[in-house]
Structure formats: structure tokens, C-alpha cells
């Protein structure tokens, strides 16, 4: 593993970052607003107002009353992200092509794309460039990840933050300087901001360290020396003050509010994680992940068995196996974070549990790259240079790469803009998922799928019955995606259009429309792969 990344790898990472952010920017106009994102944006607006006041009249802005007003609605913190989103909105407010929604979503899109670049960088360092590309694209092309990468306050932002934290931590183990230790601390503070159960990553760090350095650790402990990574100290001691300082809500009654924040992460998570993972991550990526995990564990076991004396802490902690083991532990910790945090962003009824497991997906992609590397090695071993010309060997490796990415690419492109309703062939695709009664799309998000219909069919000033999704509709209107004259209403009486989005146990809402409109015939049905997602009734 090289200590310094090659400039060409950095260039590829940068290219991935810009390209993925660009694709997200181009495709964002078709992505709807979930109920949780609408709530997130409302609180971001309050933070934006406060930021404006802070610049104009700092003394006034720092009054408790103003701080409470701006940050009161922030049950989940995301303070850095909200400040960035508010700043983005302010900066882009006079740019004609940038809608308010685009401006708010720009920082999370850039952050999501950064995650793709980081995955490439890490896998390139630990494995090789080809594996780095496979890792980055494996993650980028997971349909639900691509869908969530557009969204503000989404679990994808949490996933990338956790990934950054792990990367900085591994680098801090390799180098003796303070730079990566401080970076780990900063990333950990950011993680605590976005995930109340983010502290569980420390458990992964401890398990990772003890498994690699257990013997040395106990030997040193017997000599009354505590040998632990320096990053632990910074994470344990300084991250909580960091959270307190970076989240103005905690500047008053910090203990009670911190307690309430941490308590918000206890309960039962929605959905079955294994069914949802198998149903949303392309099967080939999961097979590669399993292959990579097994290969990685076997390599680690082999290293232990054949090392006569314990390796020096720096050599083993900086080995490729160290990163690979951390990927595995971090993936497990990410699942645990969700199990303990059903109230995290995107885990509400709208998401139906489809998004919340994304935290583990970067590590799946990294271990999938390990699996891909193993397959390429096996290919190379069985096609010696005497028999197979080097050019054919290279083409062969390229073909393997294409074979593991073509499926995810086709699935990802096909899933747009139905990212929440996409399911892999493992569960039978969208029809199979419908048979299983799995989540399709949240009612708020699905309004974007009907915007063209409303714009083309509704007469001037007509009203649309939206008992729960008026705020999401107003966001679309603000972005210019639905006509200004269309009016949302929470009263069914007098409304001219009534959309219904399928979700488990919500049929009563549709029956109410049948009863009131006197029809069971929808005027328009938006379906994905033959599975109706949202349909709208018109009063006749």
C-alpha cells in the first residue's frame, strides 16, 4: 500500500467527484420531496434566516431567543449541513437556473459525490486503481444510493460522513503526525451531528484495534502501559465538546438536550435489513462483497498463522488487511446505528426503511472491490503470459469489470426517477416487491411524478386534495415544477384532483377518495415496471 496517492489516482477521484455531482445536478429536477426532507428544509430555512442575522447583526443573532427560534425545530442536528445548505441558497438566490430546491440540495449532492471519490481513493490505495474504480462505481450505481444522493438530510449524507471518519481513522493509524488524528476528530463530530448513534463507530474502531493488536495491547497493559491509538483520545474527550460547540441548540440546557438527542436513537428500526439490502443492492455487488469479505478474512487468518512473532503495531495497522477489517466492522456498526436510530433522517413512514441501511453500502462497495480484485487475480493466475497474450489478459480484466458493473449501471439508469421503488431481481424486481408488499414511494415524493400531469391537465386555479403533503407540493411550486395557480388543499370537499400513493395499510385513504369523488377510475396512473406507484382521481 503506497503512502502517497499517485496524482493520476487523485485525478480520477476528482473526475469521479465532478462527474457524479454533475449527473446528480442534471437529474435532480425529477426527484420529489419526501416528508422528512420537507421538514429538514423548513428547519434549514430557519437556520438560513439566523445566518443572515448573524452576518447583519451578530449581537442580536446570538441572543438566546433568536438561537432557540432558529434551531428549535432541529431535532436531528445536521448543523454543518444546514449551514452549508443555507449558505448555498443565499449564494444561488440570484442565479436564474438554480431553483431553491437545487440550491438546498447542492451541498448534499456534492457531499454524496465526494463519497464516491473517497471510495475510489481508499480502494485504490489499499488494492489498485481498477478495484478503486469498481468500488466507486459499485456504490454510485446502487439505485437507492443514487436516488438518495439528490436529497437533503438523507441517510446518504450520514453514510459518507461515517466513511470519511473511518478513512481518517485508518490514516491516523498509519501516520504518527497529528493531522489525521484531528481530521478523525472533525469527521467524528460531523458524524455525531448527523447520527445520534454515530458513537457506535467507536465500537468498530475498538474491535478493529483489539483484533489486530490484541496481543501487543495486553502485553503492554501488563507492563502498565496503555497502548491505544491517539485518535481514540481525541474522539473520546473532544468530540462531545465539539458537538456542543457546533450545534447552537446545545448552547442552552446542554445536558437535557444532548440526553434527548441521544435518546432519540433508541427503538425498533423499520423493515427487515436483510430483505431490504438484498432487494435494493444489485446481487452481483453483494456477491462480490461476500467474496471480498471471505477473501479478506482468509488473508488475515493466513497472516496471523504464519507470523512467528507479533508484527509491529505500525506495520499491521497500516496493512491492507487493516483497512479491509475496518470496512467489515464499520458495515456492521452502520447496521447497528440504524437499528438503534429509527428516527434518523429518512427513516420515517415515507421511506419505509428502504433508505436507512445505506450507511453500510460504502463498505459493501469497498469489500466488493476486494472481491473483484480476487477474481482478477484468479483470472491472471489461470491465463499465464505464455498462453494468453498480455493484451488479451488486459481485455479479459476489462471484461470482468464490465460484467460486474453493467448490471448495476442498467439498473440504476432504469430506476430513475423511481429510485425508491426499485428492487433487484433477488426479490423479483418491482413486481416481486409488490407481491411482497414492499414500500414503493412516499406520498410526498411521488407528487413530483404527477407534476407533468397536473401542469398539462388541470384548469386554472384548480385544487388538489393533499391531506398530508401540502408542504411538499409547495416546494415543487416554489421550484417552478408545478404551475403557480394550482392550489393544494387538505379538505377533500371541493377539491378537483386527489392523488393516492400506494403504501401498506393506507387503502382507507383511497376508499375515501372513491366515496367522495364517486369513482374508482383513476385519471392517471404512474407505474414503474408495471407496478402502479401513484395515481390520481379527477372529480367529474
Amino acid at each position, binding site marked *: 500500500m503506497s503512502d502517497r496517492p499517485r496524482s493520476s489516482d487523485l485525478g480520477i477521484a476528482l473526475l469521479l467527484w465532478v462527474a457524479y455531482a454533475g449527473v446528480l445536478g442534471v437529474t435532480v429536477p425529477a426527484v420529489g420531496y419526501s416528508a422528512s426532507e420537507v421538514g429538514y428544509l423548513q428547519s434549514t430555512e430557519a437556520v438560513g434566516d439566523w445566518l443572515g442575522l448573524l452576518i447583519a447583526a451578530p449581537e442580536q443573532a446570538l441572543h438566546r431567543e433568536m438561537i432557540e427560534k432558529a434551531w428549535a425545530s432541529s431535532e436531528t442536528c445536521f448543523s454543518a449541513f444546514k449551514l452549508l445548505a443555507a449558505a448555498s441558497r443565499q449564494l444561488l438566490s440570484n442565479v436564474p437556473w438554480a431553483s431553491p430546491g437545487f440550491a438546498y440540495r447542492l451541498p448534499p449532492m456534492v457531499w454524496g459525490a465526494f463519497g464516491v471519490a473517497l471510495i475510489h481513493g481508499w480502494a485504490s490505495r489499499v488494492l489498485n486503481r481498477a478495484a478503486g474504480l469498481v468500488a466507486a462505481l459499485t456504490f454510485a450505481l446502487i439505485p437507492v444510493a443514487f436516488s438518495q444522493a439528490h436529497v437533503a438530510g438523507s441517510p446518504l449524507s450520514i453514510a459518507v460522513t461515517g466513511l470519511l471518519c473511518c478513512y481518517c481513522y485508518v490514516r491516523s493509524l498509519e501516520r504518527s503526525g497529528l493531522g489525521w488524528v484531528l481530521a478523525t476528530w472533525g469527521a467524528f463530530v460531523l458524524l455525531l451531528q448527523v447520527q445520534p448513534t454515530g458513537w457506535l463507530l467507536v465500537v468498530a474502531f475498538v474491535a478493529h484495534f483489539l483484533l489486530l493488536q490484541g496481543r501487543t495491547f495486553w502485553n503492554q497493559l501488563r507492563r502498565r502501559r496503555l497502548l491505544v491509538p491517539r485518535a481514540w483520545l481525541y474522539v473520546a474527550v473532544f468530540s462531545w465538546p465539539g458537538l456542543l460547540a457546533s450545534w447552537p441548540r446545545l448552547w442552552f440546557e446542554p445536558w437535557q438536550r444532548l440526553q434527548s438527542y441521544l435518546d432519540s436513537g433508541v427503538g425498533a428500526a423499520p423493515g427487515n435489513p436483510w430483505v431490504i439490502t438484498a432487494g435494493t443492492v*444489485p*446481487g*452481483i455487488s453483494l*456477491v*462480490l462483497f461476500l*467474496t471480498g469479505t471471505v477473501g479478506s478474512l482468509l488473508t488475515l487468518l493466513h497472516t496471523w498463522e504464519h507470523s512467528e512473532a507479533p508484527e509491529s503495531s505500525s506495520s499491521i495497522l497500516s496493512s491492507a488487511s487493516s483497512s479491509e477489517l475496518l470496512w467489515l466492522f464499520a458495515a456492521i456498526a452502520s447496521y447497528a446505528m440504524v437499528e438503534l436510530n429509527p428516527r434518523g433522517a429518512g427513516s420515517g*413512514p415515507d421511506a419505509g426503511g428502504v433508505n436507512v441501511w445505506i450507511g453500510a453500502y460504502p463498505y459493501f462497495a469497498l469489500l466488493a472491490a476486494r472481491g*473483484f480484485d*480476487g*477474481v482478477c487475480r*484468479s*483470472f491472471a*493466475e*489461470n491465463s499465464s503470459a505464455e498462453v494468453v497474450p498480455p493484451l488479451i489478459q488486459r481485455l479479459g480484466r476489462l471484461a*470482468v469489470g464490465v*460484467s*460486474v*458493473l*453493467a*448490471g448495476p449501471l*442498467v*439498473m440504476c439508469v*432504469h430506476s430513475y426517477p423511481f429510485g425508491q421503488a426499485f428492487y*433487484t*431481481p433477488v426479490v*423479483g*424486481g*418491482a*413486481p*416481486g416487491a*409488490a*407481491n411482497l408488499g414492499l414500500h414503493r414511494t412516499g406520498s410526498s415524493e411521488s407528487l413530483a411524478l404527477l407534476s407533468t400531469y397536473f401542469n398539462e391537465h388541470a384548469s386554472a386555479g384548480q385544487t388538489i386534495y393533499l391531506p398530508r403533503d401540502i408542504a411538499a407540493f409547495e416546494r415543487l411550486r416554489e421550484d417552478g415544477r408545478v404551475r403557480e395557480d394550482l392550489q393544494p388543499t387538505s*379538505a*377533500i*370537499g*371541493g377539491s378537483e384532483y386527489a392523488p393516492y400513493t*400506494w403504501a401498506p*395499510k*393506507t*387503502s*382507507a*385513504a383511497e*376508499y*375515501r377518495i*372513491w*366515496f*367522495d369523488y364517486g*369513482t*374508482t*377510475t*383513476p*385519471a*392517471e*396512473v404512474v*407505474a414503474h*415496471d*408495471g*407496478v*402502479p406507484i401513484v*395515481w390520481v382521481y379527477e372529480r367529474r
Partner: protein
Amino acid sequence: MAIRPWLWLAIPGLGALELVMHVLLATKAPTEEEFARVAAQLDRLRKPDDLVVVVPAWSEPLARKAWGEERLSLFVRSRMDVSSYAGAVEVSALDQRAPELASFEEVQRVRAERLLLRRLENPRYVPSLFVFTDQVRPDRMLVGEWNGEAERDCEFVRRKDTDSSANPKFSRGAERRLSEPLPDPQPRFVCTGAKASFVGVTLLAERDMRPRRCILAPAPFNGVLRLRFAQVPIGRVLKGYAARLESAQHVLDGTHVAFSAYVGGQRVGRQAIAAEVGFVPFEFAVQHLQRGSAEVVFEVEGERGAGREFCFNAEMR
């Protein structure tokens, strides 16, 4: 030949297989256009009173959009059960079958587009002689509240406005999370006893989320609600389902609603309906009564005099 050196080939193989599977599955389910194109074949196959069932049920909105009200009406969708249909046409995709039609016998099948249309006949057909939910109108029924001393008639009104947002929200069974406002019966009998209430037809979701059309008939405070239907043909059985609805604002108190049926002045059945159990089927034998027609009276009474929301459907078969 040793297999192990070639195991790596399984990965590209799986990748290609998944891609092919994805393409196949993405194009497997029928589209709205396909449903529209089979409408003519459906009409040729079905008889006027046939039930039309679409499987899988999740594809039904496409069929409803393509076929319109005539083939999949609200009345058909909110059926009590399939036993009162002599025939049915099952329109199925993805080789699925409707479990409720399992006892029907296939007499004809047509494959069109990616859909299979099967005409089925019901060997256990029992015709409905009288559907009470279809007769909630002043020329067929009377509603009154008995307070122990006198019966006060409930007045029939046709409301013009259609806003039911202000209606009480009910959290019955599976609807608990949603707490939908009750679909508002428009033609209704308004009772002005101890507390104003009304009787009329509404539409609710069963625990399995199937629609149930039923007569909203709240048990009055310290009284009995009576629904009188004139000239009902007498068959073999009075069959239906009933549910006690729980207001989201009220704490469950474990009380029941007593539901009784009288035919020609003779009580044929009484059932206590508990809360939180969804719709409960009832079946009262009337075959021992004299043939012809008679008045049928339903009584609804809250246990210990408490007023309770209640909804039921009944058919004479």
C-alpha cells in the same frame, strides 16, 4: 478437468445473469395499454352480472384506468364475498390466481397480451335476494331511536356539501396509524336524540385493507337504534358483517355493541360486537320462517347504555 481454476468465471456469469433477469422482470408485468387492449375480449367473455377480478391485486389501478367504472365498480370492489356471484372473469398476470375464486370452475380461457382471462362458474352460487346497503333510502327503510319510552324518527336528508374533513377520525384495527376521517354518507338519516348522529352508507377498509361498504348505524346513548326495512324477501339466511368503530379520541373501555335482527317481528339473531376486531361476520338462519316477504328490523344498542359507532352490512340470501 479441475473446476477450481475456473471458479472466477462464476462472477461475470452471475453479473450477466442478473442483468438478463432484471430486463426480463422489468418487462414482465402488463402495462395499462395491455389492459386496454384486452377490454373487448373481456366483454365478450363475461356475462352481465359476472364478477371481474384482477390478479395480482396491485395491478388493479391500471385495469381500472383502462376499463372504467362499468367493469370494476365500487359495488363490485366492496363485495361481501363471492358466493352471490354465479360467474366471474379472472384477469390474471404473472401466472397468479385469485384465492377467493379457488372454488369456482373454469369454463373458458383466453390468453391475450400478457394476460390470462378465465371465465369461471360458481358451483355454490347463492343469489342475494336483498342487499340492505343498496336500500338506504326513505322509500325502503325507516330509522328511529327508542329511548325506553318512545321512538323518535330520524329524518332523511340529502346533503349538498361534500366536505367530510371535519368528521370524526376512527382508528379501527389496521387503520389505526392512518386515522382517516370517515367517508361521509351523503343521503343520510339524521337522528337528534341525546346526541346528534346519522345513519347512512359509508366505505371502510377491512383489516386486510379490502374495501367494505356498510351502513353506519351508531348506537345511541341510553337507547336503541332501529333500522326497519319493509318488504324484504325471505330467503334461507341473513348474512353480513359488522364492526364497532373506535373514535381516536376515546379510550377503549372493553364494552360491546349488541346487534340484533328481527324478521317479521321474530328475533332471528343477536351478536355482541367487540372493539378492535375489525369486521365480524354474522349469519342468522331464517329458513324456518314463512316464505314471502316481511319487515326486517336491525337493532343496535351500546352496552351499559353507552353510545358507540357501529357499521354493518347485510344481505338476505
